[in-house]
């Protein structure tokens, strides 16, 4: 038992340390920027700090609900990146997979054959398939043509974005608003009555789907023969081949699972009743890249991703509320970026802790 607790501490400590360092840095920026801003009083600075720390609790249940809703997609892209990483692949293409998944979901929800509940489930499944297919290209290139997955993922991100724009314009386009037409309410994801617990928020079944997905991936990786194979390939391809594991096939499957998760993320964003739309702008979906920070901060542990995803949204909402204390949005952005940036120190902290542990009896 005691062993379990020290092990848990060892696993969580690096994340906590990098978060701590990031927050400390954030506080310094807040105080310094506050001192140079004549319109801000010390009180403003104090309340600003408060808002940052309170994050998704600033406004009670409504902001908590918003936090859960916003965390949903980045938990899923985070799990996508973390999963791929554990199997030796760097999925920088979650953004493209997210976008094609999102489009597939919207398309099926609007044009699908079963208006009503059938459509959203079908839409979710289509999104996962689309994401998987998109990632499969990367996996196939890597496995059979030895193309580095980072390069092909980046290309697939742009191809995905432009292809989706083209497809949107030709199928489900709202010319006036330059975006996709809204998904009929009957085909949106169920809210399960959560909106009455968390008023004014869009939280729905999606958050639970994300958590369940993270748990499933955790079990897959750690408890199953399939996970045993995938991790073995990730660590040492030669040894996997020697052991009779089909590593080429596994690379493709790994990428497809990662793609399905990112696709699912897209589906849950665009199927929610809050009315998100794919806009025709030349910007890659940020969820895919936030997923990298989320995965990194969780040291690629799928369960950890649930918490690091929530944490990042916590900061984002905290930043949002800080603006009420006359903090410039740019300063807020700097603080958030700094904290995420510091999360990259996590690897350093991990080494540090291991060294300490190695030295002591």
């Amino acid at each position: 038992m005691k062993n379990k607790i020290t092990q848990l501490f060892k696993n969580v400590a690096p994340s906590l340390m990098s978060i701590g360092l990031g927050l400390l840095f954030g506080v310094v920026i807040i105080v310094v920027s506050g001192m140079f801003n004549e319109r801000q009083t010390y009180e403003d600075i104090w309340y600003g700090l408060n808002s940052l720390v309170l994050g998704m609790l600033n406004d009670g249940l409504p902001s908590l609900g918003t936090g859960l809703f916003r965390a949903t997609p980045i938990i899923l892209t985070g799990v996508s990146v973390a999963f791929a990483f554990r199997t030796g692949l760097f999925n920088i293409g979650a953004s493209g997979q997210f976008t094609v998944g999102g489009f597939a979901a919207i398309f099926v929800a609007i044009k699908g054959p079963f208006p009503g509940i059938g459509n959203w489930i079908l839409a979710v499944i289509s999104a996962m398939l689309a994401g998987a297919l998109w990632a499969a290209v990367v996996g196939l290139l890597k496995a059979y043509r030895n193309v580095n997955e980072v390069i092909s993922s980046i290309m697939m991100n742009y191809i995905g974005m432009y292809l989706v724009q083209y497809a949107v314009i030709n199928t489900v386009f709202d010319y006036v608003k330059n975006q996709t037409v809204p998904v009929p309410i009957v085909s949106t994801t169920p809210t399960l009555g959560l909106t009455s617990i968390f008023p004014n928020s869009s939280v729905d079944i999606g958050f639970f789907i994300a958590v369940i997905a993270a748990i499933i991936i955790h079990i897959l990786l750690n408890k199953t023969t399939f996970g045993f194979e995938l991790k073995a390939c990730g660590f040492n391809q030669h040894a996997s081949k020697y052991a009779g594991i089909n590593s080429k096939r596994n690379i493709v499957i790994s990428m497809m699972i990662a793609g399905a998760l990112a696709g699912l993320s897209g589906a849950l964003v665009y199927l929610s009743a809050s009315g998100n739309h794919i806009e025709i702008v030349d910007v890659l979906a940020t969820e895919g890249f936030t997923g990298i920070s989320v995965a990194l901060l969780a040291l690629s542990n799928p369960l950890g991703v649930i918490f690091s995803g929530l944490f990042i949204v916590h900061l984002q909402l905290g930043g949002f509320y800080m603006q009420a204390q006359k903090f410039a949005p740019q300063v807020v952005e700097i603080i958030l970026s700094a904290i995420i940036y510091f999360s990259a120190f996590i690897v350093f902290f991990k080494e540090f802790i291991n060294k300490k542990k190695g030295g002591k009896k």
Partner: protein
Amino acid sequence: MSSGQYVIEMNQISKFFPGIIANDKVDLKVKKGEIHALLGENGAGKSTLMSILFGMYQPEEGEILINGKKVNITNPNVANDLGIGMVHQHFKLVHNFTVLQNIILGAEDSKFGVLDMSKARKKVADLVAHYKLNIDLDEKIENITVGMQQRVEILKMLYRDNDILIFDEPTAVLTVQEIGELMKIMKALIAEGKSIVFITHKLNEIKEVADRCTILRKGKFIDCVDVKVTSTQELSRLMVGRDVKFEVDKEIAQPKEVALQLKNVSVLKAGHKNVVNEVSFDVKKGEIVCLAGIDGNGQTELIYAISGLVPSKGEILINGQDVSKLSVRKRNELGLAHIPEDRHKHGLVLEYSLEYNTVLKDYYRSQYQSNGFLKFDEIRKNSDKLIEKFDIRSGQGSPTISRSMSGGNQQKVILAREISSNPEVLLAVQPTRGLDVGAIEYVHKQIIEQRDKGCAVLVVSLELDEVMNLSDRILVIYEGEIVADLDPKQTTREELGIYMTGAKRGVGYEK
């Protein structure tokens, strides 16, 4: 206290790892200009002690004096400044860099921030000429043999003007010829006043070059002896704590039907002629056949072809069934086991625990999984049994991460996995590489036991002792072709050597 005659003085050094005391108040005193051997069983703590001297680990207790001065070696840069260099048990080279780039890496000369290669090249070329190291500075590491890679490691130390040189099991990966050359280089180095710590499991090498020998057992200092007046028997007794037999006891083989048959097997390598050329031979149940040859004559590729790691032409039959087009897994399921040449590349997933590595090939069998879920209890039971049987030493037993284990114990994990699968055909490449004499004795016994149970064993070994002792039949391979089929009882080492260099071909193998 220190009399000044020692270049290295390590006093009462202790180092703890989770679950194990790797060094327990160990003393090591090396005189200037001597070759000092460090001897001990697998896991005795030799590499750990040297890693402490090289600044990679900090000891919990003890002090280190270099040239009589107390020092605190906090990292390898400090060690380098003190003139200490190390060739690691598993080399640390950048594979897609050239020899020259690897040598100067980390000690680059620069002029206004621009790399000054010509100066470096001159210095390295001088060293190469001086020690007659004979190496192409512009070849990439991935294209040169292990022996050459080791020279790169040695040049790295010389380039940095190190005069205390640590060699951690340098001979484990070398051929007989290369070992001879290494010994010459080592002698030349001490003749110039450098001092060497030399780790090896081969007692004859210690007798040949070392002046004194420090012996460790289970992390403890046992003795420091003068090599000239100590026999190899005594050395092994000090190290293992009992007498070790060097000859292998075995009954005369009772070969039965053919289990492994090769018919005109060839392996192509891009841009080369066939590295294995039309090879045909049989291995029968109940016999041990040794494939003898100088490294690089196609042994590696031939074994890869049999195990399915590289494609080949021709037929490979296991118990009469052609497996040459089957997957690695199918071949394993037909009873093929393979102790690979490179334990880190093929043999182990180093990030996996010891127990995971014991089921690396069998995790999917119903014994270890149900409905796709691993049976952790069964895996643990199996590995605990193997640890006991093969005397695998590690910090935390089954859950120990394989990377943290000593080289010899990593090898034992592979041996345990492959031998315990009770194979029909066992391919054993350098099975005892890096093992201590006690462990070698045990592994040889196990291989013979498999033979007596009816397994067909094909051994590849660069060690003539092993070839002569273990085999019931010797096949000599030269330039990808089998050139002789010999009876070890009627063949001398000298004869074997002649066949291996291609100077002669056996009956039935004439050109």
